[in-house]
Every structure is written in C-alpha cells, then in structure tokens.
C-alpha cells in the first residue's frame, strides 16, 4: 500500500502552517498524528500533493484550565489526555472515552485536534465535544474564529473548517462539580469504531435532574447531539420512565448505515442500549456511587 507522492513540510508555527495552507489550497493537507489521514492516503482515498506536518508546533501541545474552561491544544494526544491530572479532575469523561479509542500505540499518535477536526463519523471525540458544549478555535489568515462543536459537523468528512484554517484548540466548559458522566461504547474488538456509542453528562439537584446533555457516535453521517433525549431527563428523578423516554428520543435520531457492524435496525437498537447504560452510569456517579 503505497500512497501517492507528496512534498513534505514541517512548519514550526501556526502562522507558517496557515501560509502553507493558503499557498497550496486544496492540494495541501494538515498531518497531525496521521492515524486517520495515512490510512486514507494508503488506499488513495486522499492524495494531497503537499503534506503539512504540524508535529513541531509546540504551542498546540498544552492542556490548561482557567476560569471554568478546560483547553486542549490540538496536538494533545490521546495518551496525554489519559495521563493528564487536570483532565481527570475536571472532565473525567474525556479520559473514559480516550481509553476506548483504538489501542496504546495509536493513542500515542492520535491527537484531540485530529480526532475532532476531520469529520470521520466513527471518531469518538466529536460526539463527546457536542455533549460537553465544546467550542473549536479555528485560526486562518484573517485571525481566529470559534465554532461550536454542535455546529461544526455537516456530513461525513465535511465540516465548518475552511481550507486555509487550522483547528488550534478545543475549549470545554468544565462541567459542574459532582456531575455524573459516562461514555458507553459498543465495539466488536479493540481498535474498532463504535457499533454505537453514547456520551452523557448530567447534574442532579434535590434528587431531580437539573441538566442533561447526550450525544451519539457513529450512528449517522455526523455525530448527533441528542437534545430531546437530554430534555427527557431534565426535571425527572431519572427513573425508569424518564430513561425510557430518553432512549426512545436517542433511537429516533439515530440513522446508522448498514456495515460490517450490523444492519441499521440493530445499530439503532445498540444506540438505545448504550444510551440507557450511559445514563444509568452517569446517574450513579452523580449520586456519588
């Protein structure tokens, strides 16, 4: 499997990367950890003639937390996310999900920015970022703009980013202390994409659900923010009836294709099961269990 040839660039700053993207237009592609793009290039589904490797841009490797916001540089790897105490303390669902991505070797390479940016519906981080209400910083020749994760995904591999922009940072509002969370993923084996997966973050107040946010992985052209499913829980005691309503709402928006993971009906059903499990786990964590 030999990819098409390309010219290799290794910029040392975001500005330099942007000017290369501007110069090469749709012939240029950014390369981060490479574990999405290189397989596409091997099968020649992608054949950029200029590959812009951003590994040397140290500014994009920081994890930070200030003012109720967790910031992840685009080049933070899954392995670094798993090892980060800041992440474990403020937003543990990120660690839980990262541990379900691929395998150790791939997690050393795979980056948060690459996972959220490229629009592969199989990736786990996009639904998670929708669930968390994250925003993506996109830097281009005219400066920076922010796009909400919930607005970023348009279709499989089509997103709101422009050709001359670099996704530099993911900004996550830190969930309230004591929140419940879970990322439940059904996969056939280590390294597989989800048959279906669900991210849940919820908070309780006086035994009732004060807020709930739910999103689904790999059961549509894009990750899906299951707004109605979350709303079905708010105000309830998260009892069986409320959970059933949330599961039904999640199943209703799930629109998976048939693939080797199963036919659409099965995968939709799995999306419901994952949603139920994630809600139950999140609930028990919110109660301190």
């Amino acid at each position, binding site marked *: *499997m*030999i*990819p*098409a*040839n*390309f*010219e*290799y660039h*290794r910029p040392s700053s975001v500005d330099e990367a942007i000017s290369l993207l501007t110069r090469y237009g749709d012939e240029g592609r950014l*390369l981060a950890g*490479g*574990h999405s793009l*290189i*397989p596409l*290039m*091997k099968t020649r589904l992608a054949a950029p003639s200029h*590959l812009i*490797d951003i*590994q040397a841009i140290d500014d994009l490797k920081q994890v930070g937390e200030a003012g109720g916001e967790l910031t992840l540089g685009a080049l933070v790897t899954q*392995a670094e996310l798993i090892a980060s105490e800041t992440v474990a303390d403020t937003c543990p669902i990120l660690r839980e999900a990262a541990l379900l991505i*691929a*395998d*150790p*070797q*791939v997690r*050393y*390479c795979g980056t948060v920015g690459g996972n959220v940016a490229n629009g592969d519906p199989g990736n786990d981080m996009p639904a998670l970022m929708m669930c968390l209400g994250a925003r993506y910083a996109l830097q281009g020749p005219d400066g920076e703009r922010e796009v909400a994760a919930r607005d970023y995904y348009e279709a499989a591999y089509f997103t709101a980013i422009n050709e001359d922009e670099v996704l530099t940072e993911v900004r996550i509002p830190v969930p309230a202390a004591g929140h419940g969370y879970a990322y439940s993923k059904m996969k056939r084996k*280590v*390294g597989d994409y989800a048959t279906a997966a669900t991210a849940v973050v919820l908070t309780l107040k006086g035994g009732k659900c004060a807020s709930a946010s739910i999103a689904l992985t790999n059961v549509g052209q894009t990750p899906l923010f299951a707004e109605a499913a979350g709303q079905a829980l708010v105000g309830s005691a998260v009892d069986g009836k409320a959970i059933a309503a949330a599961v039904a709402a999640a199943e209703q928006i799930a629109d998976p294709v048939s693939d080797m993971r199963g036919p659409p009906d099965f995968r939709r059903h799995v999306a419901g099961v994952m949603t139920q499990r994630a809600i139950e786990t999140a609930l028990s964590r919110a109660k301190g269990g």
Partner: protein
Amino acid sequence: MAKMHIEMTVNGRSVDGLAEPRMLLIHFLRERLGLTGAHIGCETSHCGACTVDLNGQSVKSCTVFVAQANGAEVSTIEGMAPAGELHAIQEGFTQEHGLQCGFCTPGMIMRTYRLLQENPDPTEEEIRVGLSGNICRCTGYQNIVKAVRYAAEKMNAAKEAAE
C-alpha cells in the same frame, strides 16, 4: 517529487539516507537499513507486528511516514541485545513459551519494553490492555502475559540489586 535527506538515530547509531517522504518507516527500516526484525503484518495499523519505539513511544511503523520520523530516535528489536545477551524481555518470551511462530514477537517485545518503562510492575489486566494493540494468532496470549511478568520481575530484581 524530490527525495528527502533523512537522518535518524536507530538503536543508538546515527543513520541517514535519501527517501521519498511517502516511504513508510517500516519500509525504511527493513529495506534501507536492513533491519528486518520489525514485521509487516496487516499494514493497516491493526496487528502491531511492526511496532517500534519512536521518541520514547511505541508506534506502528506502518502508519508513520519516514518524513515524520526525520530527526527521531528509533529503537527496534535489533537493539534489544546489543552485547549478544538476551534482554530480560526476550528471555521471558523464551522461558515462558511466549511465542510459537514468532511473527508477532518483535512487535510484542518492543511494546512490552515501553509498557515496562511506564509501568514496571503491571498487573495481568494492565498487561492485557497494554498489549491490546498487538495481535498473536498462535499463543492465545496466556504465555505472553506470563513472559511479560517474568521480564518485569527480573528487571525489578536487577534494579533493586543495583540500588
């Protein structure tokens, strides 16, 4: 397109050569440097037979362009027994029958090396998770887990004896 001048340190030795940037690291190691220990199994980053250590991390060298590894430090199975004496991990795999056909073994050993650097005393579960990116089609993994434990104990004993 032009070839690139590639320099890297492989098993402590500086090497260089010309290569197209699209060349995969595994091909550079095997075909240019003659280091055929790392194997090409699936070539799709699933099987782990091509695992090498790159800048202190285990990577699947079939999914790294040689251009990305320009300037890097690489360790392969060939670097594990520089003085002709088996490394504790290699000894573990022989003593505990951690291999049958041996195809996956160079990748298993390089991954084990990094795992034990990060976690010198792993539990059985941590070993299984740590090696989950390496597929073995012969052993059923039981003896590989034992081999890793053997190596961990031997390396820890050697460390204690040195202190």
